[in-house]
């Protein structure tokens, strides 16, 4: 294994984190939080120093394969989270390291599950950093790196592949660097529009920026204890629309930028995504109609919650834990479906569900016509057998990890619904579940062991299982041990 390139990439990631920490420093300055400023500055220095040391020596070879790409990606996310949680610990606002790490991983993986019962007591710089982690994690750390650093060569695609969600990762344009830049231009542009629209709705600037970060990354850290509940209907609508927009495959926006409207509207995945939103909203709307005084409120909350859960954002406009059973079940099912591939959302992804369902239909057909030949198609193009196989394996692995996690946290003895939805909400990067981890509750009910299990789930869900699981593969482990011996 090319360990030198992994070290180099990790160093770059740390340097980038150091650069990003300048932002909370500025916030601390603006609000005069000198304790916060000091803690962010010190962590910034640590990151920068380690970063410069490990990138000082250029790697011997720039060639690396999927294996290295996956290991580098997983380790990047882990290191990023460990360094990112230090300010919370140093400022003593989240004194426990485990809790701080949980909060940070939840941030970077755009989960939005919190262990804080009183978010509003945090200092501004910490709230800002917490929301910023969503924004960084949403489009991907390494994609960001690829957009700005001069790592050249085709091997870099292996980094992007390890980090980007979806069954098959494509490029928008021939060069990775340009692709990554385009993605970030779209991402930044949309975030900016949302901030403007929120400010136009009388939202305070700080709230608008942090809420937009949470929406853009489909994260879901609220900056108020009751998430988005207390904001005006206008703001809730804006957030709803943008949550749904950030859950769309970014290729669609690229085609729009190129003015190929037809192409972007014809994307099968996006079409199904909107169909799912439409149907679930309709059912929930009629189901909860009697809970609200007027139909507009019911419609707003139904749309908001469907958008929030399907895109795996996890904001809440209302306590949906008290909704009728049918609505809750729909929301739990939506958790698993997730957003489109190539978006910032989590979950299994609409495209994978499409492939899985089409495989089932194909299997059924083969019972009726045992010799029939039929290829699964998406967007009118046949899906390669490898992709179908990988999707099936992904689904099975997902279920296995899911089952083990539910089992592992069952020792907490806090009820099946809580355990089940806690794992579902973390592995799908959503945030709130039901009952004890419902929208008005938080994850502080769990013990440290369960928290680590859930942290693993969040990372596994964000990196789509395999890049993280490969760290535990015996030969990868052996390679890494060898690396430390050679060091």
């Amino acid at each position, binding site marked *: 294994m090319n360990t030198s390139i992994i070290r180099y990439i990790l160093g770059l990631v740390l340097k980038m984190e150091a650069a990003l920490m300048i932002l909370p420093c500025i916030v601390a300055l603006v609000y005069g939080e000198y304790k916060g400023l000091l803690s962010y500055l010190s962590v910034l220095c640590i990151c920068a120093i380690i970063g410069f040391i490990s990138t000082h020596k250029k790697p011997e070879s720039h060639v690396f394969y999927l294996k290295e790409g996956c290991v580098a990606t997983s380790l990047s996310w882990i290191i990023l989270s460990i360094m990112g949680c230090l300010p919370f610990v140093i400022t003593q606002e989240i004194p426990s390291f485990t809790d701080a790490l949980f909060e940070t991983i939840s941030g970077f993986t755009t989960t939005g599950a919190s262990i804080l019962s009183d978010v509003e007591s945090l200092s501004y710089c910490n709230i800002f950093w917490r929301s910023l982690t969503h924004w960084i994690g949403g489009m991907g750390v390494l994609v960001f790196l690829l957009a700005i650093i001069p790592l050249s060569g085709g091997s870099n695609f292996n980094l992007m592949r390890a980090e980007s969600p979806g069954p098959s990762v494509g490029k928008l*344009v021939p060069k990775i660097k340009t692709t990554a830049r385009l993605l970030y231009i779209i991402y930044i542009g949309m975030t900016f529009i949302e901030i403007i629209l929120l400010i136009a709705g009388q939202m305070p600037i700080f709230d608008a920026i942090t809420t937009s970060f949470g929406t853009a990354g489909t994260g879901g850290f609220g900056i108020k204890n009751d998430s988005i509940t207390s904001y005006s209907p206008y703001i809730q609508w804006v957030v709803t629309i943008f949550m749904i927009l950030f859950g769309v495959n970014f290729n669609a926006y690229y085609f729009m930028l190129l003015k190929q409207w037809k192409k972007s509207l014809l994307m099968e995945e996006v079409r199904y995504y909107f169909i799912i939103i439409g149907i679930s909203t309709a059912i929930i709307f009629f189901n909860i109609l009697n809970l609200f005084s007027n139909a507009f409120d019911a419609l707003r909350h139904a749309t908001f919650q469907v958008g929030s859960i399907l895109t795996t954002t996890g904001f809440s406009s209302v306590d949906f834990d008290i909704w009728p059973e049918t609505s809750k079940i729909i929301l739990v099912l939506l958790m698993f479906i997730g957003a489109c591939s190539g978006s910032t959302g989590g979950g299994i992804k609409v495209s994978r569900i499409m492939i899985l369902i089409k495989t089932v239909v194909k299997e059924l057909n083969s019972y009726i016509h045992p010799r029939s030949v039929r290829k699964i198609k998406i967007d009118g193009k046949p899906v390669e057998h490898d992709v179908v196989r990988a999707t099936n394996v992904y689904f099975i692995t997902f279920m296995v990890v899911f089952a083990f996690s539910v089992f592992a946290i069952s020792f907490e003895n806090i009820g099946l619904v809580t355990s089940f939805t806690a794992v579902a909400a973390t592995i799908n990067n959503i945030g709130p579940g039901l009952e004890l981890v419902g929208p008005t509750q938080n994850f502080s009910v769990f013990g440290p062991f369960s928290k680590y299990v859930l942290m693993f789930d969040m990372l596994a869900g964000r990196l789509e299982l395999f890049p993280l699981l490969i760290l535990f593969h015996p030969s990868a482990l052996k390679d890494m041990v060898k690396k430390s011996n050679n060091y």
Partner: protein
Amino acid sequence: MISNIHHSKNGLNIIIVGCGKVGAALVEQLVREGHDITIIDKNPQKIQNYTNLYDIMGIVGNGASYSVQQEAGIENTDLIIAVTGSDELNLLCCTIAKQVGNCSAIARVRSPEYSEESNYLRERLGLAMIINPDLETAKEATHILCLPTALEVNSFAHNQAQLIKIQIPESNFLDNKSIAQISKSLNAKFLICAIERDGKIIIPSGNVTLHKGDKISFAATRRETINFLKQIGFRTNQVKDTMIIGGGKTAFYLAKILINIGISVKIIEQNKERCEELSILLPKATIINGDGTNEELLKEEGISTCKSFIPLTGIDEENIFLTLYASKISNAKVITKINRNAFMNVIDDLNLGSILYPKYITSETIVAYVRAKKNSINNSNIETLYHMFNSQVEAIEFSIYEPSAVTDTEIMNLNLKNNILIAFINRNGVITIPSGQDSIHVGDTVMIVTTHTGFNDIQDILKD
């Protein structure tokens, strides 16, 4: 904003249709030069392999289809290169691309029937280039047969200057002499540009000493080449006859050219029908019907006395064994054609005489065109570009159109990068091998030999 990103400063948007051997060589070369490449092939596995290996975009489909070309972004493409296995498909790809987009097009056309008409086709279809790998390979082989002591012959400045690669035999005049000594003791104008020793490339200065077994490349005018080679004891006349094994397209083109310049040709081909075809097409050649890998047949046809021997079968291993055999039992000049390029290091160690890589010959011709096109867009000034020593060395011919830091300064006062030589200056058709006192003027063309890659402008030779 988007259009900015699409036209990144240095790269062209290029679509390559067909990922065979030539396609792959092109991708490798053009990616290195920073172009934005999209490949189209029907085989998803190939697309997968190459997109994993290089920073390019891949599309599975038929390159001649309008919708596939659209998907590849034909509107923004500067150049389409069709190198699939089928001539007709290549021409169709280019024709359609010309209709849809505003791009130049290069098609590979191998069949001799079309090749005769390639100029007509090119003009009528508005193509930038029609390339025939077999014909190019045959031309390259001809160059070598005309100067059989050379391993490689490249021509520059409208054939006036040449870059010749030779290997120094044992107890040769050059053995154990430094370059400064050699230039003093010989009465010839030449410049040794590159030395390959144990697989390493040296761009030499005056105090480097040559040894037997070194492969050297030198630049000289046509006349001085002969002069130099004679003085160091190399033969300089062209071969009298040649024996070609395998009667494929390359063999046909080669035989045709050789017969025209008065070299007698013998072709051994296994397939009876092909033999009859060849005998009609090449009435002056001797066509033998038989197995070219049969030792007895080769002896019977006089392999031990023939002056040159060129196996052109489709199988690399056969070609290699045949040349090894030929160089063992005869003094013939041998040329080996190698299609694939796995195990290059091993191949280099064998005594295979001159080696031809058809796919590189093809890709280099195309790359030279791409560079010229890029230059016309970016205002650069490369005339021709050659790769030597497995692409480790580039020889680039620049036209000097305007005054710059490089012009009107004595060469010895220029702050050149390491591993750069100015091989010759062409001033109004007169070739000079420059010394330190010479300088470059506006209107000259200058040839640079270097181990750096990606030079675009003559100023790139200066240290930053």
